[in-house]
């Protein structure tokens, strides 16, 4: 077992000494079996670390979605009838197998996504395991309710599963975001057809290999392929009872549109442009808390900025801008960009060439708009086997909130920083965005923290912390950041419907006829 303070680089999947066994080709996981795509077409899955192929995965079509839906419909009645005791046992067994294979999954996800393995070891994989435990727990405490309408008439409320649900996963946390979606759905008694993100189709299949003996056939099905084909076939299907999606707004709107046309519910998480607000009192002492605040700003580079809640707008009180920014830039300069499987690496590779292009373009847009480049700003070409990887330097641009770099999610390690005079202006800037997913507030003044936190129009306000994602804290968007919440037992409501039995124990007729 590797430890984080030891010099160590994991061997990439499939190479000698790697914790990750690798096959040349993977199939879809449908009905508890590995099923080749109907048309027999596969595509390469690239590692962003090197730009080179890892393996082949199915390039599925609508036919494969139908096959997965067949398997799910076959499994749905038995799973819905499975006791919560047993469903909970299965969720806990998934958690155990994730934990027992933490290094294997962490290395697989890091190599496929490009994120540093220190993040997948410390965050993605342990959080995924805990997520299954959390929903394995709360489902056992779930209760219906009874209303006594009058002395002889009782209304019983039961939570019933929706049936077969569709779930579309983003590329930024391929395993953790799958856990966020799958755990509440199956805990509540649903069965699911999952469409992983196109740039990260494989690491979730490593998880399916582990859970194959644990989860009854057809309860979890995974179909890989293009969003425009597989995602659309799933989201528009008449055979699903609910669709969940994380991604960009136009596809989010399409998905909600299909749900509307099929008269089914949907939940969406569509990103943000999260403000991270630093009040002057953080500099009252150069202590542990101040150090934490510096890290709080630098967290924009966590997961290379490919996070829906990336704190990509830093709002700093003008009176402390110079000394605070100086310390932050020192910290940013120490970021170690490199091989994602080196445990010392703190910044890896962007997920795809397309994301790299987009980031490069947005930095140019920012500079053209008159923003000042404080650090970074370029693609980082690393030596040797990493030379064709998708690395971008940690970047900070100073400007003002009307600029496009402050208004649009770049999804890269690019921070847009600006200043504010007072609390009122901080709030005005923070809320001057279409989105409302996350926000950060840093202050030693608890009254101010509460006041500002309540006034920010966002679903999550991290207060004197950032980028914590514990199960039990609801997560989701205000405004254009989507509809619904994840990561909390209220998710069970998103995956169940209410059955009301209205029962009369009175033998007498109503007397109308």
């Amino acid at each position, binding site marked *: 077992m590797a430890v984080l303070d030891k010099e160590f680089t994991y061997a990439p999947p499939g190479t000698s000494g790697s914790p990750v066994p690798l096959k040349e080709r993977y199939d879809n996981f449908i009905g508890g079996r590995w099923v080749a795509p109907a048309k027999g077409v596969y595509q390469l899955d690239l590692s962003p670390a090197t730009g080179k192929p890892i393996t082949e995965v199915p390039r599925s079509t609508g036919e494969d979605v139908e096959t997965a839906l067949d398997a799910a419909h076959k499994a749905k009645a038995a799973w819905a009838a499975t006791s919560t005791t047993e469903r909970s046992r299965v969720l806990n067994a998934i958690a155990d197998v994730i934990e027992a294979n933490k290094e294997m999954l962490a290395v697989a996800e890091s190599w496929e996504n490009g994120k540093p393995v220190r993040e997948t070891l410390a965050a993605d994989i342990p959080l995924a395991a805990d997520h299954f435990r959390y929903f394995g727990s709360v489902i056992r405490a779930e209760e219906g309710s009874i209303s006594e309408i009058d002395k002889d008439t009782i209304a019983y409320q039961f939570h019933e599963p929706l049936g077969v649900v569709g779930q579309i996963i983003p590329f930024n946390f391929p395993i953790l975001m799958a856990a966020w979606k799958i755990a509440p759905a199956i805990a509540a008694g649903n069965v699911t057809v999952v469409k992983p993100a196109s740039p990260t189709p494989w690491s979730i299949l490593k998880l399916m290999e582990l859970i194959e003996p644990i989860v009854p056939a057809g309860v979890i099905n995974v179909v890989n392929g293009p*969003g425009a084909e597989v995602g659309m076939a799933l989201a528009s299907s008449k055979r699903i009872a609910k669709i969940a999606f994380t991604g960009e*707004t*136009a596809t989010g709107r399409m998905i909600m*549109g299909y749900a509307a046309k099929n008269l089914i519910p949907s939940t969406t998480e569509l990103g943000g442009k999260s403000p991270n607000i630093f009040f002057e009192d953080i500099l009252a002492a150069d202590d542990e808390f101040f150090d934490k605040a510096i890290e709080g700003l630098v967290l924009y580079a966590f997961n290379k900025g490919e996070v829906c809640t990336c704190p990509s707008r830093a709002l700093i009180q003008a009176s402390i801008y110079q000394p605070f920014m100086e310390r932050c830039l020192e910290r940013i300069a120490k970021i170690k960009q490199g091989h994602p499987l080196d445990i010392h690496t703190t910044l890896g590779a962007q997920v795809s060439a*397309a994301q790299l*292009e987009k980031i490069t373009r947005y930095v140019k847009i920012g500079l053209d708009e008159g923003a000042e480049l404080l650090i970074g700003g370029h693609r980082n070409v690393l030596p040797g086997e990493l030379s064709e990887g998708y690395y971008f330097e940690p970047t900070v641009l100073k400007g003002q909130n009307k600029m496009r770099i402050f208004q649009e*999610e770049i999804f890269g390690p690019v921070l847009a920083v600006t200043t504010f005079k007072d609390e009122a202006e901080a709030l005005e800037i923070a809320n001057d965005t279409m989105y409302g997913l996350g926000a950060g507030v840093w202050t030693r003044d608890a009254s101010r923290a509460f006041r500002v936190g309540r006034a920010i129009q966002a679903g999550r306000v991290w207060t004197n912390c950032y980028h914590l994602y514990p199960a039990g804290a609801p997560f989701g968007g205000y405004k254009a950041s989507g509809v619904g919440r994840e990561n909390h037992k209220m998710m069970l409501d998103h995956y169940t419907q209410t059955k009301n039995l209205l029962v009369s124990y009175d033998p007498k007729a109503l007397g109308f006829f």
Partner: protein
Amino acid sequence: MEEDRVQATPEALVAIERLAAEHGPLVFLQSGGCCDGSSPICVRSIDLPIGPGDVRVGAAGSAAFFVDSELDERWGKPRYRIDVAPGAGDTFSLEGRDDLHFILVD
């Protein structure tokens, strides 16, 4: 006078017309937000992707281009110049089936 702030490169126009021949009338909807946000999404008009809050800012070949009016405003009513790049994005945009993705360029 109708606005025209949309242009497409010759390569993008070829891709658009090929998609139109295969899928029927198309529209573009500008995306924002997470993941592949900021990509122009090309979809069939019969899928009714356009809403009351969207504005038409021009067309790329036979495909009208729409953007949410607030997004357009916040981006400073820019020109939308569409190009096409290799590799599928992760959206519902139709060119993903042909291993391509539309992008905005300057």
